[in-house]
Each structure stands twice: as structure tokens, then as C-alpha cells.
């Protein structure tokens, strides 16, 4: 087999036993790899209704068929899949760096972690040798510290490590899994699933050769993509980076500010991508095999947050900045650095702090509740202090560590309405009140509030549709984008490189065929994308999620944009949401309840899963 390693590693953390099985080639063709393969395997190895923190919730790590090659941005990704402690449905998150490529060279397409270790352990995968090692001395350490200690004690600088921080150990529901020190499989709380298994880290060394089916044509194609990546399709990522969005979103009045109380931020100029690059970006680096480089490494050289060094992108900048009313980039960078230290999803942590500040300003939480912190919007010291509390589950942080959905329910007194989330996952930096194609994409996203499941915001932000209007036709637009995005996450290429696939699916099919030699058609690739969205939906249906969960945060539906300007008065009504959902389900061939039909599943060769919708 080319591209695929052809093997899956099973690790039972309860018994310490491991074994290897061949990769099912039919699964490979149908679900490609990454999140697609991961979700399909998860369904095989779990029982309906499993608790996310139970040993019976398997954690699946998968790379893609492109991993291990020199394909620009495609050589290096990996994905984690499990039932999420936030959504109680699909949990999935991806990261890039150098970890996925190492796992492929160790000879695995996926690793399935089952059970729970009696004591904290880390897994050391050294090609065919797999060991569970004591992790007592790593407890309480950050992912970066953990990586350093493991490399030191195993005696190899080139070992790659993915680890959880103190937050994952303490089952903080927004805990992430970090590799290569600053690369996070961030969303849906999979670090907490790892923590619940007493699994502190995964260390990998791989020495095997990776070859592709058609090496000469493949290298020609690599050359072509190296050229494309120097062009306009990637310019944003190579120059200002995603932080460029701050001023763009602000001018369109679609940047949620102060926990969705506004859609525009008066301090935007101070936290813009332009200022970030001018004052803080020290170097832009690249992942293994990448020909773009996008990772904007920032250093704070002076002031109270001196010594902070971290990567920065638009989403965490927005969440820790405008969403909390904070207009100081040095504090935002400190917040990001702390998120990496504790192993927290920095988007969610910003949204949680914004929520807490809203509760404080509305008198639902008091200064006493915060152990004396003056938690008003815009207080950068409060931002930093509350993140510390969440990371440690200390004081109010213990409740906030549950995420805004559960925290809102626990706090009560109207706090339920202040937590802005979808399916339990905190919102991201697009104001859904005035971006209605995005609103649909967010509502139906199988992993909760997220821009990366569809990218439907692009239609709204670029003015390709009337962003303030909900109308028929948006369903198919979202569906088509979702099908491409799931393929991107299953092949595992970087979303920042999507613009270089000029013919999108045709180009991706060509890449897949040059690597694997399978010779599938573009049509088959399109169907694989659709199939992966259906398997995700089946995952959620089996776990009890449905139309009722395809909804929008409270404020998006009840608090019209107050700011004078292009978005004033915008919100999404129940009627609009219903119209959008009906349109989307219809374009997917699902029932009005959002359940895939037996005919649809059979059409896609998913006969083996129809029992999920029969019950």
C-alpha cells in the first residue's frame, strides 16, 4: 500500500496490552484518513451513550494518506477523535507540526487508545516497540515542559510528543492536546478525554521510509504547488497572518465584542494584525514539509508581560481581546501563552472569560466570587488571572472550567443565557447575527460552534451573498463547503493552503491518486466528502443529538446588533433558522429532523451503519 502505512495500533491502557491490525482498505477508500477514518473507527469501538470520561470512550489518533511525504502542508497533520465532553457527540480536532509525519514513519495510520491506566502514564511508540511508561514526574507540567523532559529521558532530540497540560489532567472540559510546543488539537475538549485515561503524553519516533505510488509525477506536482504557494492564494497567511481579520471584521461590524454585547470594538486598531506584526512578531516559521510558513511567533519584550513567547492567530486574539473588551496585545499574548501552558483551547478560554465578565457586570457573579478580582470587561489583569484559575480549577475557575454551557447552568440566575455556545462548544470570532450563511454552518457543525467545519463565513464576508438575509440556497452552499472541509481534514492538508487547490476536488483527487495509486474518480472523492459528513451525523444521532441541537447561541437569536452601522438590528429569528435548517437537510437528503435516510446511506455504500437510523 502506498500513502497508507496499512496498520492500526491498539493500546489498551487498562491492561497495558497492545496489538497491531491491518488497516481495512475499504475504510481507507471510503473514509480517507484523519477525522473521516477516526470517526468511522470510533463507531466500531464504542457503545451508544458512553460517557466521554469513561474508559469505554476510545480516543483515536489518525494521520492521513499524505502524511510523511513532502507534500506542502500535507505531510505533517494528525487528528484526534473521541466523544467530546463538551458536545456529548463528535469530538475532533486536528493539529500540524511534526507529530503526524513521525507517526506515519513509525508505521501507523491510526492509534486507538482504550481503557484507563491505573496510574498516570505516557505512551512511547518507537516503531514496532510500544511501551507504557510512568508519568508521575510529568504531572503538573505544561505540554512544552513535558516534551523537553521526555526527549531528555529517552535520549533523542528528534522524538515528537503530543501532551496534555495541567488542565487536561484536571478534566477541564476545554483542555486541548499540544504537540511541537505551540501546535494544538484545540477544540472540543479532547485533552480532558486524554486526562480521564491517565494518559499524559504520546511520544513517537519513526524510522521507516515513506514512498508514494507515482514518485516522478508526484514530485512534479509538488513543484507546481511550491510555485502556487508563493502566489496570491497564500499571501495573507505568509504576511499579516489571520490576525488581518481584526480590522476586516471590525469594519463589517461582525466581530463579537464583550460577550456578544456588541459587534464592533472601539479598541480594534490597538489589537490589529498590523500592530501585532509591527510590534510583536519576531519570526514566521513553518511546519514539517510546508512551503508556505504561517506560524507567527510573537515575543513580548517589555512591560508586565515581558518574556512571553507564543504563536498568535486571529481566533485566540479575538477571543482573548475584543471578546473580553481587552485592547492590550501584550496581555492577549500572555493569555495565549498561559493557554498553551495549561493546555487550554485558547478560543474557548477567551469566550469563557468574556462570559464571566458579563456575569460580573450584570451582578450575577460578584467580586467575592472572583476572590477579589475586578472582573470587568477590558481589565487585562483580570483576563490573565481568570485564565490561571481555569487552568488550575481554582475558585471560580472550577466552575468556569466546565465551559460556558455547564457553567451557565450551574451559576443560574440568567447566566444560562450569557453563555454563547453551540452544542456546548464556545463560539468563534464571527458575529452570526449578521453573517447568516455562517450562522447555518455553525448551527449544523457536527462538532459545535466552529468556523473550520465549513468556512461558510467567506460567502458573507466577501459579499457573495446578502449576509443579512436568510434564504433558500444557503443549505447547498454550506453542504458543498462542508464536504470539501471534511476531505481537507481527512486527507489532512492545511486549511490555509486550500486556495492553492485551484480546482479544489479535482486537484485533491489527483494528489490522492499520485500518493496511493488507487485511481479513484473526482466523483468518488466528492462522495467520500459527503460520506464523512454523514458518518459524523450518524455519530451524533447515535449519541442522541438532532435538530434541537442544530441551533444558535441565545444572544444571536435574541439580542439584535446594537451598534450603529452596517449590521445594526441584525439577529437570527427562529423562523429564519428553521428555513435555513430545512433547506440544508433537504440538500443533504436527510429527514426534517436532520437524520440521514436509509436510502441516502445505501446510496453512499454505508449499509453497515443503517442500524443507527433504524432504531
Amino acid at each position, binding site marked *: 500500500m502506498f500513502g497508507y502505512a496499512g496498520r492500526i495500533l491498539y493500546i489498551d491502557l487498562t491492561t497495558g496490552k497492545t496489538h497491531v491490525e491491518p488497516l481495512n482498505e475499504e475504510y481507507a477508500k471510503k473514509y480517507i484518513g484523519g477525522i473521516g477514518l477516526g470517526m468511522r473507527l470510533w463507531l466500531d469501538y464504542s457503545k451508544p451513550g458512553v460517557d466521554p470520561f469513561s474508559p469505554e470512550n476510545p480516543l483515536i489518533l489518525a494521520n492521513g494518506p499524505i502524511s510523511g511525504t513532502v507534500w506542502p502542508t500535507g505531510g505533517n497533520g494528525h487528528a484526534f477523535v473521541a466523544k467530546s465532553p463538551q458536545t456529548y457527540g463528535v469530538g475532533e480536532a486536528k493539529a500540524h507540526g511534526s507529530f503526524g509525519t513521525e507517526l506515519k514513519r513509525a508505521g501507523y495510520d491510526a492509534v486507538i487508545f482504550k481503557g484507563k491506566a491505573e496510574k498516570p502514564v505516557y505512551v512511547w511508540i518507537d516503531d514496532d516497540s510500544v511501551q507504557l511508561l510512568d508519568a508521575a514526574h510529568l504531572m503538573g507540567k505544561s505540554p512544552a515542559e513535558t516534551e523537553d523532559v521526555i526527549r531528555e529521558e529517552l535520549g533523542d532530540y528528534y522524538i515528537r510528543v503530543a501532551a496534555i497540560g495541567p488542565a487536561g489532567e484536571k478534566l477541564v472540559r476545554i483542555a486541548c492536546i499540544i504537540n511541537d510546543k*505551540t501546535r494544538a488539537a484545540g477544540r472540543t475538549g479532547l485533552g480532558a478525554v486524554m486526562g480521564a485515561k491517565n494518559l499524559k503524553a504520546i511520544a513517537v519516533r519513526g524510522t521507516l*521510509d*515513506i514512498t508514494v505510488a507515482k514518485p516522478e509525477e508526484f514530485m512534479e506536482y509538488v513543484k507546481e504547488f511550491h510555485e502556487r504557494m508563493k502566489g496570491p492564494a497564500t499571501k495573507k497567511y505568509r504576511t499579516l497572518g489571520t490576525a488581518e481579520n481584526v480590522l476586516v471584521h471590525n469594519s463589517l461590524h461582525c466581530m463579537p465584542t464583550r460577550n456578544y454585547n456588541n459587534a464592533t470594538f472601539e479598541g480594534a486598531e490597538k489589537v490589529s494584525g498590523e500592530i501585532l506584526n509591527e510590534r510583536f512578531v519576531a*519570526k514566521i516559521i*513553518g511546519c514539517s514539509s510546508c512551503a508556505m510558513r504561517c506560524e507567527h511567533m510573537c515575543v513580548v519584550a517589555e512591560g508586565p508581560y515581558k518574556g512571553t513567547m507564543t504563536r498568535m492567530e486571529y481566533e485566540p486574539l479575538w477571543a482573548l481581546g475584543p471578546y473580553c473588551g481587552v485592547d492590550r496585545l501584550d496581555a492577549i499574548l500572555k493569555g495565549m501563552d498561559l493557554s498553551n501552558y495549561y493546555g487550554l483551547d485558547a478560543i474557548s478560554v477567551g469566550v469563557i472569560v468574556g462570559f464571566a465578565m458579563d456575569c460580573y457586570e450584570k451582578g450575577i457573579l460578584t467580586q467575592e466570587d472572583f476572590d477579589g478580582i475586578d472582573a470587568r470587561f477590558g481589565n487585562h489583569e483580570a483576563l490573565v488571572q481568570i485564565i490561571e484559575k481555569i487552568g488550575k480549577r481554582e475558585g471560580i475557575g472550577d466552575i468556569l472550567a466546565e465551559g460556558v454551557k455547564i457553567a451557565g447552568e450551574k451559576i443560574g440566575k440568567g447566566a444560562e443565557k450569557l453563555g454563547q455556545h453551540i452544542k456546548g462548544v464556545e463560539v468563534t470570532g464571527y458575529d452570526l447575527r449578521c453573517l447568516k450563511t455562517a450562522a447555518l454552518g455553525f448551527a449544523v457543525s457536527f462538532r459545535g460552534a466552529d468556523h473550520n467545519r465549513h468556512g461558510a463565513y467567506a460567502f458573507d464576508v466577501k459579499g457573495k451573498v446578502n449576509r443579512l438575509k436568510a434564504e433558500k440556497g444557503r443549505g447547498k452552499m454550506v453542504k458543498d463547503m462542508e464536504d470539501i472541509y471534511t476531505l481537507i481534514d481527512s486527507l489532512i492538508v492545511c486549511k490555509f493552503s486550500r486556495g492553492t487547490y485551484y480546482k479544489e476536488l479535482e486537484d485533491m483527487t489527483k494528489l490522492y491518486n499520485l500518493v496511493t495509486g488507487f485511481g479513484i474518480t473526482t466523483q468518488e472523492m466528492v462522495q467520500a466528502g459527503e460520506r464523512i459528513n454523514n458518518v459524523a451525523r450518524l455519530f451524533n444521532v447515535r449519541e442522541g443529538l438532532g435538530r434541537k441541537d442544530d441551533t444558535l447561541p441565545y444572544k444571536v437569536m435574541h439580542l439584535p446588533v446594537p451598534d450603529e452601522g452596517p449590521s445594526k438590528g441584525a439577529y437570527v429569528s427562529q423562523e429564519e433558522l428553521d428555513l435555513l435548517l430545512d433547506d440544508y437537510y433537504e440538500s443533504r437528503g436527510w429527514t426534517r429532523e436532520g437524520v440521514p435516510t436509509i436510502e441516502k446511506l445505501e446510496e453512499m455504500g454505508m449499509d453497515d451503519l443503517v442500524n443507527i437510523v433504524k432504531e
Partner: protein
Amino acid sequence: MVKIHERKFVSADPDKCVGCQVCEYICSLTQDKAFNPLKSRIRVVRINQLVNLAVTCRLCEDPPCIAACPRDSLTQSEETGLINVDEDKCNGCGWCIEACDYGAIMLHPENKVVYVCDLCKEKGEPQCVKWCPEEALDMVTSDVLAQKARITAVKKLFQEAIKESSKAS
């Protein structure tokens, strides 16, 4: 007769190198027909996210690797400076690896003899230089490196004056 040193070797510019490892993939593909950084003659070091550098053989004058070899397996080409490994003589003892200050000569994971950058002599030019997306790699002589360093230092010293003169022109 005084002659400037003409031996060219592959050197990475620390300001441009981003640690992407493309050179490693390309080197192993060229030399071993597979993607495998462990078989690459050029290796990337990332000390932290800000400090990245690809390192390979610098074709030293009077190379310590050759001096260290007890079996006379290593020789240096007078013309190009390339280190040649006699694979029949080398037994993989590793003394040359210890002697090299740059970690540029390594034990091949399969052949069990040492291997080192040969500037892709069969291809006519180093493939890592050709493929580096950042143009961070270059074929240089030690004299050119010194020239570059001097120019950078002087530019730093006279930043203001350079700005003024560029405005004037």
C-alpha cells in the same frame, strides 16, 4: 601563490530558515528514493520556535572526520573538498561522528556505514538548495560567508545613513 578558498558548501541563512524540513525530505528522496529525514544528509535543528537552522557538511579544510578515522575510510577530494566514504573499509565505529563539530557526518540507519553530503554530485547541483521554499539555503564559499557577515555588520552600523542616502537617491 595566495589563492582564495573556492570550495562551495551548503549553508543555511538563520534569518531565512523556518525549520520546515523540506531539505530533509528532498535529500532522502534524492539519495535514498524515499521520504525519511533519518536518511537526510542535511538536518534541521529547532532550538525553540525562533531559532531554526539546517546543518550539513561544511567541507572543512583539514577535516577532523578524516583525521579521526582509524581505518582510512574517509578521503577528501582536492578539487571539490567533498568527503568520500569507502564503504568497504568503514565499519561504522563512529569516531568521525564524534570528531565532527557540526553533526554533519552520520551513521546510515540501514547501510551501517557513515554518510555525508556529496552536494548531489550525480544531479549536478544540491537538490536541497534548489527546493528550499524560503531560499534559505545557498552554495557558498567561506569567503562569501565572511563578505556577507561584513556587509550585514556595516549595514547595521550605518542604518540611519543608508536610510538617508536611499531617500536622497
